[in-house]
Structures are given as C-alpha cells and as structure tokens.
C-alpha cells in the first residue's frame, strides 16, 4: 500500500512538474535588417550550441554555412536574392529545418552594400528638392538615427518573436484530449467491426 501511495505521489509530481511540451526540434528564422537571425534548439529549452547550420537555396544547393553560438543563435547575411532553407543536424535523428522567404527582408538594399543605399538616399533627396521645404521635415532623421531606431525595434520585437515561436509549439489541452478521443474512437470502431464479425460467424448455420 505504501508503495502504491509512493507511486501515485511520484506520478503526481511528474504530471505537475512540467507543462505539455516534448523534445521536439525547434528552428525559427526571422529577418533582422539585412541579416537573417535564427534560433535552433529543443522544445525542452536545450539550445543547439556550436552547431553547424547549412544554408541552402530553394533548389537545394548548398550556399553557405554558419555556426550557432552558445545559445543556439545564429546570424546569416544573405549574399544572393534567393529564398533560403536553413538546416542543422542535431544528431540522433534530429534535423532542424526552417525556410526563409527573401522578400521578408526589410532592408534589401543592404544586399548590395551600404554604398548603394546611401546613393538611393541621395537621389531621394535630390528628387525631393523641387517640392520645396515641405519635405525637409522628413529628412530631419539622419541615416544613423534611422539605423538606431531599426535596431531598437528589432531588439524590442525579439522577445515577441520568441514568444510566437513558443506559442506555435505549445500543445494545449484540447489537442491532447482530442488525440485521446481519436484513439478511443478508432478502437471503438475496431471493437464494433470485430463484434459484428463475431456475430456474423455465430449466426452462420
């Protein structure tokens, strides 16, 4: 009896200890200025530290590879305008794969270097010139300030992105109960078929 009680307590502790999650590979990539930031790890919080992440184009050709840091975080600067696939082998049959659409990059000018974006800016000002002084208020933000704001917004959004990734991986009670319901339903049907067969055999002369 004491053992049974211990067993029940152990089971209770385990049920209560953690939420519904499992050791699933999680890979998320998101745009960050002219770079692509990504995170790779397991759903129990272990991150893939110092792992090689291979970068493929949409045809499956390997373009490049990067290493994750100690927190499973990596930054990749695309050199071509193609959709990317990031892939990392975490061993033991765990493959992390995440696709990235190049059109998501906000600062595509960055692809061809800072020089061109500055050139664009200059021409923009020139074109704005004949409009008169009404546009001059918009130019009040310098390039450096703009970049600083972009960096701040990125930093502010990062936790939000992580939360969205975590939310996507969350297994809520409904899907757990739904799964159990499917299982019972499935075996219920199997039981019905088996019972019908039994009855049909029994009614044979």
């Amino acid at each position: 009896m004491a053992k049974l009680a211990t067993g029940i307590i152990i089971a209770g502790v385990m049920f209560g200890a953690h939420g519904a999650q499992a050791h699933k590979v999680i890979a998320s990539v998101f745009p960050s200025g002219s770079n692509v930031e990504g995170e790779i790890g397991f759903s129990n919080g272990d991150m893939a530290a110092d792992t090689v992440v291979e970068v493929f184009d949409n045809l499956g050709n390997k373009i490049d590879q990067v290493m994750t840091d100690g927190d499973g975080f990596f930054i990749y600067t695309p050199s071509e305008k193609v959709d990317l696939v990031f892939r990392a082998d975490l061993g033991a049959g765990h493959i992390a794969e995440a696709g990235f659409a190049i059109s998501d990059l906000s600062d595509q000018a960055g692809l061809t270097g800072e020089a061109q974006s500055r050139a664009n800016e200059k021409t923009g000002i020139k074109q704005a010139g004949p409009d008169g002084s009404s546009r001059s208020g918009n130019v009040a933000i310098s390039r450096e300030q703009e970049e600083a704001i972009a960096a701040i917004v990125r930093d502010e959004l990062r936790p939000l992105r992580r939360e969205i990734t975590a939310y996507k991986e969350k297994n809520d009670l409904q899907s757990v109960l739904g799964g159990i319901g499917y299982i019972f339903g499935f075996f219920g049907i199997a039981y019905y078929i088996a019972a019908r067969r039994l009855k049909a055999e029994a009614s044979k002369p």
Partner: protein
Amino acid sequence: MHIVDGALAPEVLIGGGVLAVAGLGLGLRKLPIDKIPATGVLSATFFVASLIHVPVGPSSVHLIMSGLAGLVLGWTAFPALFVGLLLQAIFFGFGGLTVLGVNTVNIAFPAVIAGFMFRGVVARSNPTAAAVWGGIAGALSISLTTLFVAISLTLSGDAFIPAAKLVFFAHIPIMAVEGFVSAAAVYLIMKVKPALLMTGDQANEYAVQSSIILAEQANEANNG
C-alpha cells in the same frame, strides 16, 4: 526517440514502412476482441506519455511507455503504438508522416521483444517481483529502441558506433525513469487486474468464454 522527417534515406523509410505494415498485420491478426479496449487504453497512454516531462538535472526527459504496451499486448503493441505515433505526428509534430513506419518499428518491435522476454516471468511472480521484472522490461525496451534508432541512422549514412553511443547515452535517464514507472504500473496491474498480464491461461479462458458467447449469440440470432 522520434526520428524526424528528412533524417533518413528513402530506402530506410520504405524498409521501415514495409516492416511496420507486416507488424501491424501480425498485431491485428493476433488481436482478440476482448483485448481491443486494453489496446486502446495503452495506445492513449503512449500518446500522452510523451507529454509528461520528468526533470533530470538541468534537462528533462519524457516518458514513452512502450515496454508496458509490449508486456500487456505482445504483437498487438504494433497497432497500439502505430496509432499513438500517427496522432503524435499529426497533433504535436513529433516525428513525421514519412518516418512513421520506421518510428513504429523502432518503438514497437523492442516493445514486443521485451514483452515476450518478460511476460512469462512477470505473470508467474508475486506483485513485488513482477514490478522489478516489469521495470527491467521497460528499460530494456528503451535501450533496444536506441539500438534500432542507431541502426536506422547507420543505414542512412551515419557511422554506427558514434550514432549508437550518442543515442544510447542520451536515453539513459529515460531508461531509469521508464523502468520506475513501468514497475509501478506492473505492480498496480498485478494488484488490481493480474489477468491483463497472463498469457496462456487467459487465452484458454478466452477460448472457453468465446465459445459460450458464440453459442448464446447464435441462439439470439435464431430468435430474430
């Protein structure tokens, strides 16, 4: 434990699929009608077990409960674990649909082996000894699964020894935890419903019962 989509070579996927279908067929053939509810319950147990996390040091492991399924079900563990894996892949994204066959074989076949090795001794022992054997069966089932996973990865191009080592050592905490939980479950079954773990006797009993049921149903059918 669950191999994901894209980790294995196509030949391994096809081979796993064929073996899984063979195991499923065998399991369904050996599924007597009175074992269907038990199969469903163990399938649901397996489905939910992967969501139960046990903290081990800084990390955590999740339960699998395949050994218990093997002990109670024998070959029928194949359909039970297949259904569990299918729904895990659909609902939680564990593993994947293309690797379903390989995962089924990797998890269900060790369960069947552990079941056949320990079923007799568990059924003959008193509850305490049965719990110990049940725990060993649970742990053995996991260690065999790591071996099978390593073989699958080797056939897809990995070197066997490093792959096997990596998978085996990563699963040692799971084996320990799984052993304890299987032991507790077997102890409970031996106390509450030992017939679940009886094999030969139960089969005979079933044969007698089913002939009576058949006779009764035949009469019912005649009565209209």
